[in-house]
């Protein structure tokens, strides 16, 4: 990329960010307008920057693509994992093993709630001996991560497990910490963090809702 193209790219991304906000507002479900209050925390460009930084941190901490596998936790973690995977593939110049993990069957609250919708688990590689980076969109109580580590164990014995999250909103109920964090976001328990990924990547956003 030449120097003269750079400003125009930044300019384009900026416009995309604004377009993302507008598109998000315009095409949102009807319920959106009845939310008491909401604020945009990350727009599409900011999400992309955060994921790019996280990918570089993952690459810095781990040597090569062969020993790394990304596993996105269904459902919000999967698009995060796919995007991290694409960025890491650019950095390393080779594809990075990526899978999807559903933790419904390993949750600790199954008899306290309506049964969750089970999403597919697809781990198309052997996790034994690999460094598995679990990826989720929002880290909150840590209970999902506990379930994910148990679920992952049924597929083999990873050499180590690391954790990457786009947003860490605090309020941990278990001794779990993320290794790679896109955005630290102090929240109140009544608040809700919504992460939306679009197919195209143009209207991604992280929104804080106060209900």
């Amino acid at each position, binding site marked *: 990329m030449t120097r003269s193209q750079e400003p125009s790219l930044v300019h384009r991304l900026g416009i995309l960010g604004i377009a993302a906000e507008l598109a998000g507002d315009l095409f949102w479900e009807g319920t959106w307008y009845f939310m008491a209050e909401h604020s945009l925390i990350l727009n599409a460009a900011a999400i992309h920057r955060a994921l790019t930084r996280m990918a570089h941190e993952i690459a810095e901490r781990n040597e090569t693509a062969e020993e790394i596998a990304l596993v996105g936790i269904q459902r919000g973690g999967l698009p995060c994992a796919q995007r991290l995977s694409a960025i890491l593939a650019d950095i390393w110049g080779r594809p990075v093993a990526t899978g999807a993990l559903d933790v*419904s*069957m390993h949750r600790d609250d*199954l008899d306290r709630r*309506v049964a969750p919708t089970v999403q597919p688990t697809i781990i198309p590689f052997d996790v034994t001996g690999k460094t598995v980076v679990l990826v989720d969109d929002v880290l909150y109580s840590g209970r999902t991560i506990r379930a994910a580590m148990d679920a992952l164990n*049924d*597929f083999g014995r990873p050499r180590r497990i690391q954790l990457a999250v786009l947003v860490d909103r605090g309020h941990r109920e278990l001794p779990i910490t993320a290794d790679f964090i896109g955005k630290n976001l102090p929240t109140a328990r009544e608040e809700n963090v919504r992460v939306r990924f679009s197919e195209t990547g143009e209207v991604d956003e992280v929104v804080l809702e106060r209900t």
Partner: protein
Amino acid sequence: MKQSWTRKHLLDIESLTPEEILTVLDTARAFKAVGERAIKKVPALRGKTVVNLFIEPSTRTRISFELSEQRLSADIINFTAEASSLKKGETLKDTARNLEALNADFIVIRHSASGAPHFLARVLNASVINAGDGAHEHPTQALLDAFTIRERKGRIQGLKVTILGDILYSRVARSDIWMFTKLGAEVTLCGPSTLVPRTFERMGCRVTHNVEEAIAEADIINLLRIQHERQRKSMFPSLNEYSSLFGLNQARLALTKPDALIMHPGPINRGVEIDSDIADCSRSVILEQVTNGLAVRMALLFLVNGGKGPQEVAA
């Protein structure tokens, strides 16, 4: 996506909505994948107790339920008619109450009396799952049939399903008829007029006694076992006559669509309702049905466990 299953029991197919049925089938897909892993067990029902109350003898359904429960990490008590105090004159209600006094969370019941599971659901706090009640319903069989068809054909809506055999005494037939009509298939029933009365037309299906016509257009041919044990007196002259008039043999198979699936809930009577070589041919999905039975029963226990949730939280 909103989860559409909030039931505490599974008593029949008749009362389920198409959405609830599809929720079970979708969930079962994930549980089938669990069965294909090296470690086939998940902790979803850890610490829960399931009583398999099989008052009427059963081998395959009981084994399927037992293995499903084990794969969900539940603790299991097996209770059969021969070994029980029902032989000593205890009533079903007292038997079930005693089991509940052991803090059973789920009761899977097979009983020769239609409505026995519904009765237990009224008098007990545990979740009740119907594993076959008299000639009424066998809902998990219908669910695994639908799962198998959906997996093979991609859909059920618009398919032509022919159920052939002993309809009158079959709980599988009743559950299947509810299931397939709810999901938008066209159901045809066929068999001797003594076993396939016209009254079944009121369940929304077509009744014919001409087997060639019944199977010619079918996408699914579901054969039912001739149930000697449930027939008070013979409803047809002989098994040989049944076999020659209604059995699926090579000559009849040649009339069917080349991609029609052959199903059977088992146990099969080779040479009666189906020729031996057809039971083993590539269009027969009889063994897939057995495998899928595990996935469907795991999914069901998983969903019913959640269905109990709100009441427990409120308490």
